[in-house]
């Protein structure tokens, strides 16, 4: 089986179980929902050069803020990222499994896993994780964004907790703060000065920052922009050159000039 480049299969042969918190064992955990870390806003949107992906930095458990510097936009390889919403423990583990699977496939089969193959790999993990997702201990609702090298275009996909995969043609959102910005994206895309996919890079970054700031306004589990502690959202651009993180200095400057009380 190893000869087919299936890393997850190899892990299982070694006794690794991806889903230790199955629903049948998770009953007692339900009463401890407040202790489970979750709450987020992540989004991806097409722009002129490819796809822009962003996420806030906050991790909450119940009403406590656990951490304010989380990176929820995880690079799986040079051309794709998974922006995570839900339980970080499960999501980080999924990202780790996928990152290793893609590398193992490329190195053993001497060719890159296709874009569709990568999407399926994530969907399979989510499906396997469904019992934990339903029990509330392992809910993960990711946005997958990447540059499809074969078709030479950026693509965005989103999932439900059971692993169903949907293509977000122009944008996709996820997390507790996402309902707020979904409406804004729809409005801007349809009636704005121009469709979102034709935005130049800087405008796309500003849009991401304003949207996350709006989400934080209405959702306590989403962290906004924190000048005092120098904490800005994570913004990454995916182009035909691959994934690049927008430097926090640039974000800081754009926040100051175009996000904080712009008018």
């Amino acid at each position, binding site marked *: 089986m*190893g*000869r087919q480049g299936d*890393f997850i299969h*190899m*892990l299982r042969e*070694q006794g690794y179980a991806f889903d230790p918190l199955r629903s049948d064992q998770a009953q007692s955990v339900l009463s401890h929902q407040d202790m489970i870390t979750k709450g987020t806003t992540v989004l991806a949107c097409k722009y002129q050069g490819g796809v822009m992906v962003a996420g806030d930095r906050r991790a909450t458990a119940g009403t406590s803020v656990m951490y304010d510097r989380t990176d929820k936009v995880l*690079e799986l*390889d*040079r051309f794709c990222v998974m922006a995570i919403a839900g339980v970080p423990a499960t999501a980080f583990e999924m990202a*780790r*499994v996928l990152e*290793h699977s893609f*590398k*193992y496939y*490329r*190195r*053993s089969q*001497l060719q890159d896993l296709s874009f569709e193959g990568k999407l399926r790999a994530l969907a399979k993990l989510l499906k396997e994780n469904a019992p934990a997702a339903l029990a509330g201990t392992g809910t993960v609702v990711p946005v997958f964004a990447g540059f499809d090298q074969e078709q030479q275009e950026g693509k965005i996909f989103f999932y439900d907790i059971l692993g169903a995969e949907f293509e977000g043609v122009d944008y996709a959102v996820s997390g507790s703060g996402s309902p707020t910005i979904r409406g804004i994206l729809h409005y801007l895309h349809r009636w704005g000065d121009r469709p979102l996919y034709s935005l130049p890079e800087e405008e796309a970054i500003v849009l991401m920052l304003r949207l996350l700031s709006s989400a934080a306004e209405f959702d306590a589990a989403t962290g906004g922009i924190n000048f005092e502690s120098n904490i800005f959202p994570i913004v990454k651009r995916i182009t035909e050159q*691959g994934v*690049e993180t927008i430097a926090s200095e640039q974000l800081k400057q754009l926040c100051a000039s175009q996000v904080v009380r712009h008018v």
Partner: protein
Amino acid sequence: MYEEPHRWVEAVGNRRQYLDDQFKQGSPIVALSYAEGILLLTFSRGTPKIYEVYDRIAMGGMGHPADLEKLRFQVLDMAHLEGFNRSPSDVTGARLLKYGLAPTVKQAFEEIFKAPFIVKILLAELGRTKERDQFICVDYDGTFEEVNTCAVLAGASSIQLKLLDDMKRRLEGGLPSLKAAADIALKTWAEGALLHQTVSSDVHLDDEKGEDLEQSISTKEFDEDEVLSHLRQTLTQHTLECCVLDRTVSGSSKYRSLSRDEVTELLPSAVHPA
């Protein structure tokens, strides 16, 4: 018939002779550190001989393609399980080789009723700093050697030593640029290929005729024109494989196979294909 110890020693001796013969026509593998990373280079006919193993580790091999594949998978499985279960920083070339590859190769070599692996393998590991770049070569009998700065695989150990000496001399001025490194690697490869031609199939390096040959290999001086013309000729018939572990590449995977344009750019002007 192998119960008696001397029979066993004789059988192992036969094996060495058989294996030495298998590598005589092989294509040498050359690897060396350059200013921003490590370059691995060889000429191949169809099947590639240089591979990515892990984030900072590459592998080059001589020998039977099927054996090479089998061992490549062993190293890949070991590296990726270790990288996943512990951390990518715990995957090192030395551990993969000492506790994975070398014992497997040695065991197969000594089990005289079974076929040995017809392989010689080189692992190159990009260090966090250039001083910590490392190269490890394992021979068909499982013996291995760790070296810094540069390494080479060739058909016979005397050729390997000679090429390594020459390459070290060329590197004395400090780490070269990628272009200069490619120049050194190409010349080393061509010298190796020319030496392979001198070792005809009916001479064994451990018999009397072989000792003279060994002496002539270690003192051989090459004519620059001969080397360049051999390279020109090889370029028309074989594929030049050039791979780097590039310290300047962003992201965790540092391995990169150079594109055809990049390779053409690196060729010395004297061997540019017309």
